[in-house]
């Protein structure tokens, strides 16, 4: 089963990390990423630019409205996501726990994927 791990955290906290703190988190995560990749569990993953770089297209009107900023004005923002291939929810939660130990704070939403399109480009 493929799961999406949606990474939520308070953006002002993440933005307040020093370069050293950020590097330390990324280095710890890299170790986990490698382990997951070796186990064949890691699919496409992304860290997103700050929400200030976001633009939202509201489709509930015609023509759609383009707005600056992220879709949801919440305390915790979607800052990245993983796709992982796991046998069941417990397995997926174990992956989330391990990533969480490397990157504490915030939350991971574990969401089963209904359709997975691998896409065609390699950046």
């Amino acid at each position: 089963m493929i799961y999406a791990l949606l990474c939520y955290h308070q953006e002002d906290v993440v933005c307040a990390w020093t370069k050293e703190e950020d590097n330390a988190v990324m280095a710890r995560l890299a170790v986990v990423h490698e382990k997951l990749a070796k186990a064949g569990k890691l699919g496409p993953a992304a860290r997103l630019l700050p929400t200030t770089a976001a633009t939202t297209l509201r489709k509930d009107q015609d023509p759609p409205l383009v707005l600056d900023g992220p879709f949801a004005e919440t305390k915790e923002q979607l800052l990245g996501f993983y796709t992982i291939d796991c046998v069941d929810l417990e397995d997926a939660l174990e992956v989330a726990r391990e990533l969480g130990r490397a990157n504490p704070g915030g939350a991971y939403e574990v969401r089963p994927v209904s359709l997975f399109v691998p896409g065609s480009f390699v950046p």
Partner: protein
Amino acid sequence: MDETRWIGTTLAAARPQAIAALLRYFRDLDLAEEAFQEACLRALRTWPQNGPPRDAAAWLVFVGRNVALDTVRRRAKHTELPPEEILSDTEDAEAEIAEHMDGLHYRDDVLRLLFICCHPELPTTQQIALALRVVSGLSVKQIARAFLVTEAAMEQRITRAKARIARADVPFEAPGAVERSERLGVVAAMIYLLFNEGYSAAGDTLVAREPLCDEAIRLARLLLRLFQAEPEIMGLTALMLFQHTRAVARFDMHGAAILLDQQNRDLWNKPMIAEGLALLDKAIRHRRPGPYQVQAAIAALHARAERPEDTDWTEIDLLYGTLEIMQPSPVVTLNRAVATSKLRGPEVALAMVEPLGDKLSGYFYYHGLRGALLMQLGRTSEARESFMVAISLATTVAEATHIRTQLDELKDCRGAGGVAGGELLSEI
């Protein structure tokens, strides 16, 4: 990250919003800061046991307000503090206050807080020092180091600046649209000055000042989160990001400046460039161009060029032309001359530069550029004269070293030295 460190980061992140809201309650900067400090102390005591609150800023505002109200009362009546449980048990009230504190509410508070730091009677360095102390929460020691003064001197400056703004008449009602936009302009200028304090550092001051760049970008992102549809704030943030991408590539191991042309572009920070380009893209959609957006667009053309020879000088020349109309200044024309020299040769560029002599005779980059253009034209003795004046005006070792390298090239009679920079000449 251990627990105390995590709490420290959370408190630092919540600081601008919390102080800004407390200032609205108390209309007194000292009291607002004191209240925030007290709330932080309580956070350090209670968060490890009770866990972090859902909304740290709202928690700090609520607790800080109660504590400070109490201080005020105690000063007046010498009454006892209520027991800690009453003050800390804010579970329900916190949720309610958090509802009121989201987005819009903080927006004008944070803007007001930044705006009062920009009081026109304060010299710009004091405006910056005050913002760093009050809004960013840097220690007086850190600020003193960045400005190369003693801690005592900086303490005194900040105290004086605070006394000055305490006497100022700051309107606390929500500003109207025109006033809000004026305030944003003033605050944006201060943030860019703060960035430049960090960016102009070199050599010995580099380590102490580089954090100022990060702080400026953090404040700009904060403003942008609160004012999401302001193209000039997008432009300002993008501009600073583009410049800061080169932080590692700008100096060699001895601290000498490396020109844009000669920098190792692999060292440029790619995610920062991507963020800058994304912001500029968003800004342009608004079709309300302004000086920050134009400068960011120029910086973007440099950031986009994988090799120096890929730089789109035609577009850069056009953009400087636009900037000359928006914000006429001899420095802008001087910068345009760099682009012109790449497109139409040193002779045309020199003709643009010469008339600026009256206004820019005390400006390092004027003499540096003039010297470089003369050198390209083979007018070596005039070039040497210009370089000598430039050296005498250099304010950093990096500047002086750069000119000395040019002088060495003159001695070798190679005369093929290129023109420096190409992006608001503070480039080197």
